[in-house]
């Protein structure tokens, strides 16, 4: 198969690789270079300023706030989302009561219904979800406060997104709402591939459901959980958190910068304030945080691979 091989390879790779290099790789390289300049983005002229942008960043209170919030996103969101998803997936696939004559391991009644419904938010745009919840959170006419009034809790009328101490949690709740379903379905697929004999053996030994989960399901699902963890963390640091914060919170960035995240701060510095070079500096910090997060999760989660 040597005939014309290289011509074919070049012909097939040129277009995709060229497009990718031009629109993805090249901008990444450029942005690292720009972080050492005083480029505004508005004029083509700029000069090198060394580490000035980085020095400025370390003294920028809003940057530290955004870093803090982004780290909180990366820690709390995967924990809550994956925890809930593991619980639901286990109930759906393994939690069913044993029925006479049925298979030893079965999900609860209506498990396929749950799987379909839980996945709904995943197919909707995060922008639409954010708009919807922005209305629900509205303190005067929103669905949540009016529900609270309806059940007699007239005194409990939080400002939700308007309250600096609550806003960040409101935003995170929306991200949990929209991503749990994906992980339920993902973990369900993983659980389905665990051989039933292992569960049978555990049941014969009288293991409770909790024991079965921690001793059988979780160890065998570990690889999937770990890659889900990294995936969720990258989402929480990047595109998803940008959409929710930018759309839902006032400013955007919330009252008193209470919901500013790094990715939003990059956007604002570049496209609102005309400080493109400084924006790329924060972007580089975001890159470092993202890669460090992935490396730490992979490192801490390393275990012996279980073959079954």
């Amino acid at each position, binding site marked *: 198969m040597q005939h014309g091989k290289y011509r074919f390879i070049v012909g097939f790779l040129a277009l995709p690789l060229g497009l990718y290099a031009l629109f993805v790789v090249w901008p990444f390289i450029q942005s690292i270079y720009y972080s050492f300049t005083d480029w505004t983005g508005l004029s083509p002229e700029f000069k090198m300023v060394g580490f000035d942008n980085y020095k400025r960043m370390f003294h920028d209170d809003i940057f530290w706030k955004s870093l803090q919030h982004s780290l909180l996103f990366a820690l709390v969101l995967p924990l809550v989302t994956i925890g809930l998803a593991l619980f639901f997936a286990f109930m759906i696939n393994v939690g069913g*009561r044993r029925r006479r004559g049925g298979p030893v391991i079965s999900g609860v009644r209506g498990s396929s219904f749950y799987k379909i*419904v839980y996945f709904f938010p995943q197919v909707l745009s995060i*922008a639409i979800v954010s708009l919807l919840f922005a209305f629900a959170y509205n303190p005067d006419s929103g669905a949540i406060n009016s529900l609270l009034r309806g059940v007699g809790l007239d005194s409990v009328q939080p400002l939700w997104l308007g309250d600096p101490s609550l806003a960040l949690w409101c935003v995170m709740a929306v991200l949990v709402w929209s991503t749990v379903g994906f992980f339920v379905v993902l973990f369900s697929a993983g659980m389905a591939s665990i051989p039933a004999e292992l569960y049978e053996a555990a049941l014969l030994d009288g293991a409770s459901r909790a024991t079965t989960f921690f001793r059988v399901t979780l160890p065998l699902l570990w690889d999937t959980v770990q890659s889900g963890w990294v995936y969720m963390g990258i989402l929480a640091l990047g595109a998803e958190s940008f959409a929710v914060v930018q759309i839902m919170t006032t400013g955007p960035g919330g009252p008193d910068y209470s919901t500013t995240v790094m990715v939003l701060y990059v956007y604002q510095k570049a496209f609102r304030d005309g400080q493109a070079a400084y924006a790329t500096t924060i972007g580089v910090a975001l890159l470092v945080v993202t890669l460090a997060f992935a490396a730490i999760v992979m490192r801490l989660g390393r275990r012996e691979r279980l073959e079954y």
Partner: protein
Amino acid sequence: MKTTETSAPLPAEPGATVSKVDVPPALPAGRKKKKEGTVLNVFSHGMLILWAFMVVMPLLWAVMTSFKDDGAIFNSPWSLPDKLHFDNWARAWTDANMSDYFLNTVLVVGGSLIGTLVLGSMAAYVLARFDFPGNRFIYYLFIGGMSFPIMLALVPLFYVVNNMGLLNTIHGLILVYIAYSLPFTVFFLTAFFRTLPTSVAEAAFVDGASHTRTFFQIMLPMAKPGLISVGIFNFLGQWNQYMLPTVLNTDPDKRVLTQGLVQLAASQGYKGDWSGLFAGLVMAMLPVLAAYIIFQRQVVAGLTAGALK
């Protein structure tokens, strides 16, 4: 029920599992356990139902609200509409430019999806099936794009696109969508092409088919299941894309759905047509939800396959 003698083929510390078993199944203890099990069952079922309710409720609420008039939306968010205000939908479709946003989205996603699948499968095929210097490097270059924060690249990208005269154009947006969809597509399809048998392609090659012809007439049809999975994944990602158009597509006439709705929400504060906005939201939601319910199995396979690999 003598469990201590059965060897438990559990991978994780089998001894520990066995030692936790209460061996004498005395009647009272057994009953107590059963009762605990029931409580646990009620709790778990309750949680499952509660979450299903929490997922469906906001969506139903949005549909219901889209049929109410403005006054009812603000004064009684949970009441049923007094009558079905279909005029909200008509207003959203024409006055609020939802029809334009739909058309733009269909054009952008249609173009990007075809481009992504064609270019992605070409690159993946070469990377999966041919040995050449730099193969691994190019592969990891593509894969690396999955974990980098896109926003970092968007700042210079804005000016790259602007200098090429592609800012605020549909075809410019298509090219950028393709470029940012390639990492996952190449990753997924490379793995898929590796699983296909080599003998068919070799036979075609012996019969005198060129590499190009072998690819388009033999390999692509064989790769159809993989293409469908990755196609659904990209369709949803591109249809729901918000960050890329927000940065690169600032012309009001070229807005895509997500962007258009967000802009509409921002400007409704001045115009006060909230019912029209809700109609627009539901309009944007329904086609994707309907498509999901119809192609449920394929969608789930397409979205989870990559993460399980």
